């Protein structure tokens, strides 16, 4: 027993090093559980408040760019106005997802919530974006996030009262269901951890028609993003020798380095879809 105490005293520094390193690695591996813990909510509020102060300066310096972005956004929205579409006599109807015709029985499916980017990173291996909008302002976990030009940015992973943390596409766990505009083959968009604004599209069969410059859209298969939001354009096509798939390098539509304002997308039908899926799983299990 005495020897054990002597051993501990002799190697106390080394033992505390191992303990601290072990704790750090536990945090790294279980960061998802940490994100759900109460402590993370507190840290979010504290760092969020400091970030907001510095963001005020930043925002002022980037006013010109934000303006240009808004003009572009306005242009796009104006082009969607109903007056711009000429209706011939034949009974066709122009329907968009975002304009509700409640009297006709159409239901709103997607709600766009604007949010200010309080801080963001691109240089780490797992990048997060912090939004200055939280649960008190109706932002929910698992909402999709897009930039003003409808480029996919990421998914909300953590919400505190006034702030939200978004896992950007530049994260090792980020996986977005995507479709090629030409041909409609579906795959997954991931990040290989190297260059910001360069993504990888995997699980595309070699039989698919792929060309440089093609657009890659969200597939709409998940409840997070609607169909047809731009993820990026194809920059390079590499054929994977070990499988029958292509590995496609994309240039992302969103520029993660200078995000100022983003939109979070809330899906009103998500609960219904999830409930049905759960029922289906329960039935097959019984």
């Amino acid at each position, binding site marked *: 027993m005495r020897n054990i105490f002597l051993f501990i005293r002799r190697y*106390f*520094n*080394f033992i*505390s*090093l191992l303990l*601290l*390193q072990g704790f*750090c*690695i*536990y*945090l*790294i591996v279980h*960061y998802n559980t*940490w*994100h759900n813990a109460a402590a*993370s909510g507190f*840290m*979010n509020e*504290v*760092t969020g408040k*400091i*970030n907001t102060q*510095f963001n005020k300066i930043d925002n002022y310096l980037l006013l010109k760019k934000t303006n240009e972005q808004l003009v572009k956004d306005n242009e796009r929205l104006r082009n969607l106005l109903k007056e711009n579409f000429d209706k011939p006599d034949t009974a066709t109807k122009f329907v968009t997802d975002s304009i509700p015709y409640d009297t006709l029985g159409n239901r709103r499916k997607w709600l766009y919530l604007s949010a200010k980017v309080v*801080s963001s*990173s*691109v*240089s*780490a*291996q*797992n990048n*997060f974006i*912090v939004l200055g909008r939280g649960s008190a302002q109706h932002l929910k976990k698992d909402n999709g996030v897009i930039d003003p030009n409808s480029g996919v940015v990421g998914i909300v992973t*953590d919400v505190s009262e006034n702030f939200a*943390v978004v896992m950007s596409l530049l994260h*090792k766990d980020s996986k977005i269901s995507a479709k090629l505009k030409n041909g409609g083959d579906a795959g997954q968009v991931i990040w*290989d*951890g*190297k*260059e*910001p604004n360069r993504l990888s599209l995997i699980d595309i069969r070699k039989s698919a028609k792929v060309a440089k410059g093609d657009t890659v859209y969200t597939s709409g298969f998940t409840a997070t993003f609607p169909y047809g939001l731009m993820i990026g354009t194809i920059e390079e096509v590499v054929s994977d020798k070990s499988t029958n798939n292509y590995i496609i390098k994309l240039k992302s539509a969103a520029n993660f*380095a200078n995000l100022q304002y983003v939109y979070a997308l809330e899906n009103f039908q998500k609960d219904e879809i999830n409930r049905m899926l759960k029922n289906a799983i329960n039935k097959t299990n019984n």
Partner: protein
Amino acid sequence: MSTLVKNIIRFVLLILVQVFVLDRIHLHFMVTPYIYFLFILWMPFQMNRTAQMLIAFALGFTLDSFRHNPGFHAAACVLLAYFRPFLINILIPQEGADTNYEEPSAKSMGGFMPYLLYAGVLTLVHHSWLFFLEAWQFGNFWYFIIKTLSSTAISLLLIIIVELLFSRKQQFRTNTV
């Protein structure tokens, strides 16, 4: 100014500079400059080693909280704080220099070269452990080695610039009184 107050100010300033200046400079995707760990390099000689590691953990954890990615910098800082006393022991010029001066600097280490070596080795330790933990999840190791070396070079350059710009006054304390 007392050592405690000085160190608290350093802690806050270095974290703010790291988060709001350096993290926003995107030099190249291979290079991420870090300077916040200067706080650990500048910690006083006379300090309990376990306390050094705990303070280093707090520093790393603070930066991690800003990046919403707990563990990475904390782990690198703890390792850095663990290796620091060994290096000081090797590089200190003569017996007792660590009691004559308060903290490591070019003057107390006996010249610019030993100090540069001290900073360089510890920067390399910090960066390689940090990028190793990050690369471990992705598994691209050539990328990891190149990133470590290039980032170390840039960080070291920054440390030299900081050292030249903000010279710390180090008065000689004698313990023979």
